[in-house]
Structures are given as structure tokens and as C-alpha cells.
């Protein structure tokens, strides 16, 4: 047999709203002014939550916290394409997507206060708790997308992970499962250029992260992750495809503008000039200018949005503090099994006796 090419691939990359504010009119998604303002408010909402959380952590009121500052377009743009009954399968930096999909900010804060209560999923909310082990949760999204298909339902699962996560075998396994079982799953790789200190050039030899889908035989697209209109455009397409059993990987090109977590000091591994460069490319700024230029966003609206956000955050912080005050340590025994096994019962009794003794 003569030599021949048996497979080829190309990677599509999409941008709708460019950095210099030019808009691709053919690609611009069909969103009403109200919807555009909602997208904007959601981005601001998450940004303020992160800022407040960092400040609270510095005051010792929260534990380690992973801000999503700079990644709001990548997350809000994708999560905004979901329906209410769709599933969100996050890693640990998904505040923007969580807020859009209905998680209350006080749940985020409780989790950051080291309370399991923050990972309780309210009735009717299609979400899994944060996944700390990098790259572990896309398999859950593959399973959800598969399970929904098996039960002839239309819901999709969307899962978020980073550039670093693609190095974990689990992420490939997830995309491959999704491909084999026509799972109703959208994979979102936020290429924020860093895995803690490790830059993307050390993470992989591939030119894009999108092409990681090729080996699994599922569809993929790259998008400017700081362009919320572009992100929404590709996400809506991906969600539609996934609903019909065609899983998709989206690579969103973005930048982690802040520290990896509040325990991290980026000056150990990157230049502040690089950070300033990306500050100018901030996704919220770009979208804000777009809305202002079109007369959709004025000062008054901005003020009203800011007020709503601050009010909501203030009560979320109060709520989280109250729940912390009420925390029952013995709860750690009560959710391990449906019925408390005898050995745990004994351990709980000893624990309570000891705690009771302390007060005497």
C-alpha cells in the first residue's frame, strides 16, 4: 500500500469582540440588551466576590482561596449558555460559572471557611461540589452526560478545568468516554497560561489545548477567552451539539491575573510587566467599553449594579459568619454513611463525652 494521509485535523479559533473593540457582525450572538447587561453584572459580581474574599483571607477570616480574576468572560460566557436543568461540574476556581448557574455567594464563602456546609448542593441545583484534585472532575461530567443520554433526557453537563489539568490522564479518559458513549458533555479548558508556577510551554508539546480532543475523537474549538461574546457564541453551539450527543471541548484562551491561590506569590515565577499587559486586556473592561459605546451601559446603571452587588455580598458574608458560629463539630460523623455504623457510633459517643467533659 502506498503511503497516504489517513487523518488530518485543523483547529478553529473564534473571536467576536477584539481587543480594539472591533466586532465581527456575522458572529455576534443574538442577545438582548437586558441579557447583555446580565452577562456584565455576573462578571462584576464574581470579580467583587473574589476581591472581597482575598481581603477576608488576608484578615484571617477565610482559608486558602483561588480567585478567578481575569477568567470571568471564559466562565460567565459558557455558563450563560446553560439551561436551568443542565449540570455544572466545577474545579476549584469556578466562582463566575457557579454564580451564573445559581450557587449563592455565601456557599462559596462557607467552603472557603473550611466548612463542608459550603459543598452542600441545594435541592434542584444541578451542580457537583468543587473538585480539588486537578483533572478529576471531567470524568464525572462524562458520566453525567452519559447518564442523561441513557435516560433520554436533554440535559448537558459542562465541566471546567485548567491547562495543567489536561496533563492528568483522567482528562483524556473523560473525553474518550464522552466520545465512545455520545455523552451530553461540554468540556471547558481554561487556558490561563499557568498551573501554579508552571507555564503552558512546560505543560505540553502541543500547539493548542483544543487539539487534545482530537485523539479522543470529539469536536473542539478554541476561543478568545477574554471576549465574552465569542465565548458565549462557541458555548451555545457546543451546548446544542452536546444535547444531541456530540461532546465538545472548548479551549478558552485567558489569563490568571491574580495569584494561584492566596497562598501563592506569583513574583517568584513571573514578571509584573506580563501582569500589567494582561490587566489592559481584562475581559470585564473590554465588554464594558463595548456596552458603553453602544449606549447599553451608562453611569446610572453601573451604579445600580455596583449597589446590588455590594448589598448581596454584605449579606452573604454575614450569612457565612452565622453558619460558622453555628457549626457543629460532631457533624463530621453524621454524613459518612447513611446509617452510622457501630464503630463510628462508639467514636461519636467518645467524642461527645470528651467535648462535654471540656466544658465542665
Amino acid at each position, binding site marked *: 500500500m502506498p503511503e497516504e494521509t489517513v487523518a488530518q485535523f485543523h483547529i478553529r479559533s473564534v473571536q467576536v469582540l477584539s481587543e480594539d473593540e472591533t466586532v465581527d457582525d456575522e458572529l455576534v450572538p443574538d442577545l438582548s440588551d437586558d441579557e447583555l447587561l446580565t452577562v456584565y453584572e455576573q462578571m462584576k459580581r464574581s470579580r467583587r466576590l473574589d476581591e472581597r474574599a482575598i481581603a477576608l483571607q488576608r484578615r484571617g477570616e477565610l482559608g486558602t482561596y483561588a480567585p478567578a480574576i481575569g477568567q470571568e468572560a471564559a466562565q460567565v460566557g459558557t455558563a450563560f449558555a446553560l439551561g436551568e436543568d443542565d449540570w455544572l461540574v466545577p474545579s476549584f476556581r469556578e466562582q463566575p460559572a457557579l454564580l451564573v448557574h445559581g450557587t449563592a455567594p455565601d456557599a462559596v464563602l462557607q467552603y472557603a*471557611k473550611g466548612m463542608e456546609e459550603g459543598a452542600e448542593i441545594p435541592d434542584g441545583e444541578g451542580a457537583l461540589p468543587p473538585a480539588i484534585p486537578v483533572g478529576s472532575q471531567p470524568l464525572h461530567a462524562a458520566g453525567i452526560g452519559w447518564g442523561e443520554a441513557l435516560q433520554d433526557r436533554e440535559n448537558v453537563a459542562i465541566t471546567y478545568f485548567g491547562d495543567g489539568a489536561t496533563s492528568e490522564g483522567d482528562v483524556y479518559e473523560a473525553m474518550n468516554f464522552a466520545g465512545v458513549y455520545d455523552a451530553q458533555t461540554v468540556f471547558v479548558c481554561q487556558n490561563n497560561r499557568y498551573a501554579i508556577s508552571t507555564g503552558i510551554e512546560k505543560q505540553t508539546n502541543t500547539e493548542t489545548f483544543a487539539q487534545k480532543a482530537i485523539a479522543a475523537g470529539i469536536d473542539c474549538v478554541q476561543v478568545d477567552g477574554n471576549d465574552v461574546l465569542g465565548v458565549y457564541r462557541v458555548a451555545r453551539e457546543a451546548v446544542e451539539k452536546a444535547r444531541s450527543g456530540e461532546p465538545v471541548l472548548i479551549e478558552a484562551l485567558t489569563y490568571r491575573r491574580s495569584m494561584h491561590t492566596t497562598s501563592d506569590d506569583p513574583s517568584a515565577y513571573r514578571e509584573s510587566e506580563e501582569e500589567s499587559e494582561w490587566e489592559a486586556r481584562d475581559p470585564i473592561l473590554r465588554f464594558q467599553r463595548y456596552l458603553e459605546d453602544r449606549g447599553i451601559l451608562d453611569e446610572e446603571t453601573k451604579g445600580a449594579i455596583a449597589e446590588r452587588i455590594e448589598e448581596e455580598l454584605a449579606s452573604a458574608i454575614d450569612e457565612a459568619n452565622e453558619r460558622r458560629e453555628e457549626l457543629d463539630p460532631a457533624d*463530621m460523623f453524621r454524613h459518612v454513611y447513611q446509617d452510622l455504623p457501630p464503630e463510628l457510633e462508639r467514636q461519636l459517643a467518645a467524642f461527645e463525652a470528651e467535648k462535654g467533659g471540656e466544658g465542665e
Partner: protein
Amino acid sequence: MSERLRMVEAVRDTLGAELARDDDVVVYGEDVGEAGGVFRATQGLIDDYPDRVFDTPVAEAGIVGAGVGLAATGMRPVAEIQFQSFLYQGFHQLAQHVARMRSRTRGTITCPMTIRTPYGGGIHALELHSESFEAGFAHIPGLKVVFPSSPAETKGLLTSSIRSPDPVIFMEPTRLYRSFREEVPDDHEIPLGEARVVEPGEDITVVAWGSMLRETLDAVDDIDASVEVIDPRTLYPLDTETIVDSVKKTGRCAIVHEAPKTAGMAGEIIARLNEEAFLYLEAPIERVTGYDVPMPMFAREDDYLPDADRIEAGIRDVLEFG
């Protein structure tokens, strides 16, 4: 020559010394290069050894599995797994290959690899950053499981681990990384498999390792009895003789660990005492351990972890028996 170092500095010092001594040593793991590790345990090493210190992709199966191959070529892999629970991502490589290569090939291919990993609670870390799975590692034939409890111990035990012909899981207690300084000798080797009698005593033997040793020493301070404190230092191989001899002398024993109680290492130690010192016992052996619950997030971790008060109460129960 010796220096007063913190534990995390003793790790770095040892890695530097072994990189200098042996060209086959390679140090690698997530963020260990440019950033010097998330705890700064490898800070500066990449500057001195740019060809033998590597930032890896985020892939623990890769880190552990590639070690098998590196070792097969004659190198001495010294890998860092950023937090102990992420070694689960490399568990199949560990249990199926690292631990078994020597026996499967009847000693023709070996895996002299050291896997360093921070473990344990007490620093208010994120979920899944505070586990202590030593019993699981000790249960895998072929691995050695090593626990330093001070800067000088770190130097001696890590040096021996890196030089060991067999694979070692080296468990570094995060909460001791920066908690105190100690004189750390140069060129210090502590044989793997030898316990240390930290404090001699006559009335009771207390066994504790890693960060729990510090809590135990605090607890013992408040007890008006002669307590012998033993740090096994390696849980596999375990220095049964030192523990048995001590219990034959004291007749009483308590064992402390922060891992959950069921199937924890205390059970194994009790079984050995049952085999070799049963007739010397004057009281049931007490376990002061974590509970059979997933290591809680930090709002509840102080309630989960054995502290000096709980350890003291456990020791008193044994002393007052009979």
C-alpha cells in the same frame, strides 16, 4: 559543620547535598523548579542543577511511573508529590510497578526511587491537603515508609532514603516545616528501620511519629509519671524490637496517629506487641487517633486531630488501669 535549620530547610539542604554527591540524582515534581516548590522545599536547586531539577506537567501517574523508567536507566529519581492525597493519582503506578519491580524481575531491575510528600493536618489547608495514608503505603509490600519528626531527623532519614536501594515514601509533616529550628549535622545518615527512644521512661511506652510526636511530647510534659516516648521513624520496616523491649519494661502502651483509627498503623503495632509482649502487659493498649471519617475541612480539623489533651487523657487511662 552543622547549621540551625527548619525542617523545610533541612529538606532543601539534603536534596542539594545528594544532588552534589551523586550525578544520578534527579529532583522533579510540580512547581519544584522555578518556584522552588509550593512549600519552598526545593528553592534554588534548579539554579545549581538546571539539568537535574525539573518542573513537571500536572500528572502524578506520570511522576511516579516515569520514576520507574528513570530508575531502570540507573538514575535515582527523587520526586515530590505536592500533597500526599495527590499520590492517589499515581497509586496504580506505585502499587503495580514501583513497589513490585524488584520482586517481579527477581532483583534484575529495581526502583530506588524516593517520593517525598507533605502530609497531615494542622495548617488550615484546603480540602484533600491534610491526609495521612501511611497505613495504606505500609500495606504495599516493597515500599519503605519514612516519617521525619524534626529538622535533624529529616536530614538523616532523607539522606538514607535517597541512598536506599528500594523505593521510599517520605512523609513530611507540613505543620512542622517551619515550626522550629534545630542543629542539623552535615552528612548525616539514619538507618531506615531503627526507632528512636526520644524520652526514656519506666511507667508507660508511648509510640508516635511525624507531627504527632510533637503533640505527644507536649502531652507528656503534663504527666506525673515516667513516660518512654518512641518514634519509630520508619513504619515499614518497623523496629519491632525497640517497641517490644520498651513495653516489656513498662507493661503499658499507648499509640498515637492522626490517620483514622480503623486499619491504622496502631492496630499493626498492637498485633506485634500481642505476639511478642502479651504476657508483660498490665493494661489494654490505648489508641489515640483520628476518627473513621474523611479528614474534615479546616473548620473541623482541630476537632478531628489528636491534640496534647486527648493524648494526655489516653495515657492517663492506661496508667490508671488496674
